[in-house]
């Protein structure tokens, strides 16, 4: 077990290093954007004196490296500065939105992950049958349709024509959990449709990839029934690629939901980011990007650890 712990800590360290590099990239990428922040905040009518004063106040006269270190030190303590537009603390502005996004992502993941793995196992078992082909076509369709299009189709049929679910996923504080689930069902379903295909196809491919292995042939020659060959003999060896693709899709659920949030007017972090970019609210942009990067790194780390934990060679060393 000590080996695994060491391996995980090593990966964690590498993840932190990556995050550090990404933070540099984010900070200086924003820095490279044309235009002067102080000018942008004050508008066209500002006098040069007021602009200069604001620059002084915002610390814009300091060298970029110094400002970066300052920002990084703040970020490490959870302080991303102040929004240029509203004057609100960035941390406060983001926290609620981020929780909303996490909720939606979890909602979608809880439905999508089990469904796609079970479906993947079933199509692997029934490979090259009609069921497999139909599933293939359907998942390809859902993968290739843009999510906003899927969203509008769902709104049309499940909200406008039949009125089962609300078309707009606005939230209020006094909702019960059941109401919350009902109100956010359509955006969650849209996300499920987008990510299921990818995960299902990968599960199918990972399993089928193993079917030529000698130990699968051995299982068949022991008279093991086909479903058991897949579930008991192939699946345990296919976890690593499946976990990887699941992690990738979970990351997408958090960082790639901008369009879905816009379609359903859902108060998530994606929408916040779009607004912030439009208004040149750089502290918020930087904080959002850093959160997205951290999400990606964390989920990939989880995938690595998952792959290690499902590998018997690493779990049971000689």
């Amino acid at each position, binding site marked *: 077990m000590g080996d695994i712990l060491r391996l995980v800590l090593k990966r964690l360290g590498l993840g932190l290093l990556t995050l550090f590099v990404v933070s540099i990239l984010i900070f200086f990428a924003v820095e490279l954007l044309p235009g002067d922040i102080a000018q942008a905040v004050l508008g066209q009518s500002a006098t040069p004196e007021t602009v200069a004063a604001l620059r002084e106040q915002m610390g814009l006269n300091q060298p970029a490296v110094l400002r970066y270190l300052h920002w990084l030190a703040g970020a490490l303590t959870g302080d991303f500065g102040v929004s240029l537009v509203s004057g609100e603390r960035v941390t406060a502005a983001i926290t609620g939105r981020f929780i909303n996004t996490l909720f939606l992502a979890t909602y979608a993941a809880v439905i999508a992950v089990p469904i796609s793995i079970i479906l993947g196992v079933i199509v692997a078992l029934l490979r090259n049958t009609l069921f497999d082909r139909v599933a293939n076509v359907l998942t390809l369709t859902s993968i290739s349709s843009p999510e906003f299009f899927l969203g509008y189709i769902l709104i049309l049929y499940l909200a406008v024509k039949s009125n089962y679910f609300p078309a707009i996923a606005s939230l209020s504080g006094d909702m019960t959990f059941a109401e919350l689930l009902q109100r956010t069902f359509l955006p969650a379903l849209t996300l499920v449709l987008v990510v299921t295909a990818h995960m299902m196809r990968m599960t199918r491919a990972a399993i089928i990839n193993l079917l030529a*292995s*000698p*130990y699968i042939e*051995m*299982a068949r*020659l022991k008279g093991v029934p086909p479903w058991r060959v897949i579930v008991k003999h192939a699946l345990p*060896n296919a976890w690593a690629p499946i976990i990887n693709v699941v992690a990738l899709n979970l990351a997408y659920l958090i960082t790639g939901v901008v369009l879905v949030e816009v379609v359903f007017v859902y108060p998530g972090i994606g929408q916040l980011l779009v607004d912030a970019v439009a208004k040149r609210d750089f502290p918020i942009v930087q904080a959002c990007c850093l959160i997205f990067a951290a999400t990606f790194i964390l989920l990939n780390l989880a995938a690595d650890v998952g792959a290690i934990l499902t590998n018997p*060679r690493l779990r*049971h060393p000689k």
Partner: protein
Amino acid sequence: MSSKKDVLLKITDLRIEGFSDEEWIEIVHGVDLTLHKGEVLGLIGESGAGKSTIGLAAMGFARDGCRISGGSIEFDGMELTTTPESDLRALRGSRIAYVAQSAAASFNPAHRIIDQHTEAPIQYRIQKRMEAQEDAMQLYERLRLPNPDEIGFRYPHQVSGGQLQRAMTAMAMACRPDLIIFDEPTTALDVTTQIEVLAAIRDIVDQFNTAAIYITHDLAVVAQMADTIKVLLKGEEVEEAPTEEMLDNPKEEYTKSLWAVRSFKRPQKRRPTGPDATPIVSVQGIDAAYGPTKVLDDVSFDIYPGMTVAVVGESGSGKSTTARCITGLLPPTKGQILFNGEVMPPKYQDRTKEQLRQAQMIYQMADTALNPKIRISEIIGRPAQFYGGLKGAKLKSRVDELLDLIELEPSKFYSRYPPELSGGQKQRVGIARALAANPSFIICDEVTSALDQLVAEGILKLLDRLQQEFNLAYMFITHDLATVRSIADEVVVIQRGKVVEQGPKDEMFTPPHHPYTDLLLSSVPEMDPNWLTTLLEERGVDDIGEAADV
């Protein structure tokens, strides 16, 4: 034994087709086979003879991309070609079992050995889990596995190859089948390990009076195991006869040629004496390690121009590591390597082009050593260009010359790709690639062990001819002592990273030996059907397992 009632398996006019290039091609052309209860039939032939395909067909099974297209397979009165898949499945594992070539690949890495063992008995409701486990442990004990009560609870990667192969035989026995198909069960093992597996298989087949089909390409092995031998060639039967008769008096030319393979022998050379004699390669007291694991300990030997030095030992003994040290791929932690009396830099990156040119390698698996997407002309031309600076027409004529040397017609092979070639042809290309650099020394790393005996013999003859023509020195890494006997001048025996004995071949093959050399030599199967029995008696049955497990 051959009364009609006892017939367990009767195959008549079996035809099997394989799917390739968009059409079904017949690969087994009407083979007949009769097996009685408790009888062991040896199926032998080169690769592509259809041995495994026929073995699997005896279970009513065809691999993906193959189908049984004609004939009848009658197992204990049941016609398998017309039996539905679900009923066939009920036979597999319970009444007919299978032992695969590579136990390491055929045990599922995700489950403990005993769980895989008990899967069939539990599934067929022959035993409850606890009973099945008890039974497994007893079988492990009978097969002389160490710690029979505990070994099953390990994962496959935690157990050695020879032990896994015995565990797989135990697994095949789990439901006490009437018939077991052994598909080259010892091919992947060292000679020393092979013996214990052979002995274990023979004992257990005797004890339970199980019938078996024993598939192998090794005549000496089949001679120990089978009552009857059937020789196959390209999906057709050549001949069948009781073992003794087949060995003493083969009728067909093809069988005779198989029997004669091991007869190639070239005269042994002596190392030059006198003050001028400098070894072309001198390995002086090298140690090497992978990370913290020490794999070589004070290895020293010399190779003189024009001579073949065979380096022998079991897998993991450090043979290939020595080659890696000589070529500079793995810098030794101690000691030095000399070419022609000149000390080589330990790392290949620090060696000059001229130093690199002198030592070339030929690998075991020509399949993986040649890039499948690159034409033969480029594979051979690249080193000629790199070391010799040849270009254009000169390069082409050099490649043609090399192809001539390895007996492949230049006009036919010049622009082909490796996957279009047979195993033997690929290995020839590997040889040409090494020759292209004009080396004075070539390391041959198990170059014949992946090849059929007849093809391997061709390669050995070619290497011998090239050696005479160019005065090449070979370092011949092998675990096959028959090869050593036929081509080596000197022998170096390595055990666990140490040289235990070295000297001229004739001395090495005459007693007294170092105990380890003795173990290696006596473990090479001989054609005498009583060889295994005699050997086991000589060694005393009980210490076989220990001898090979050390």
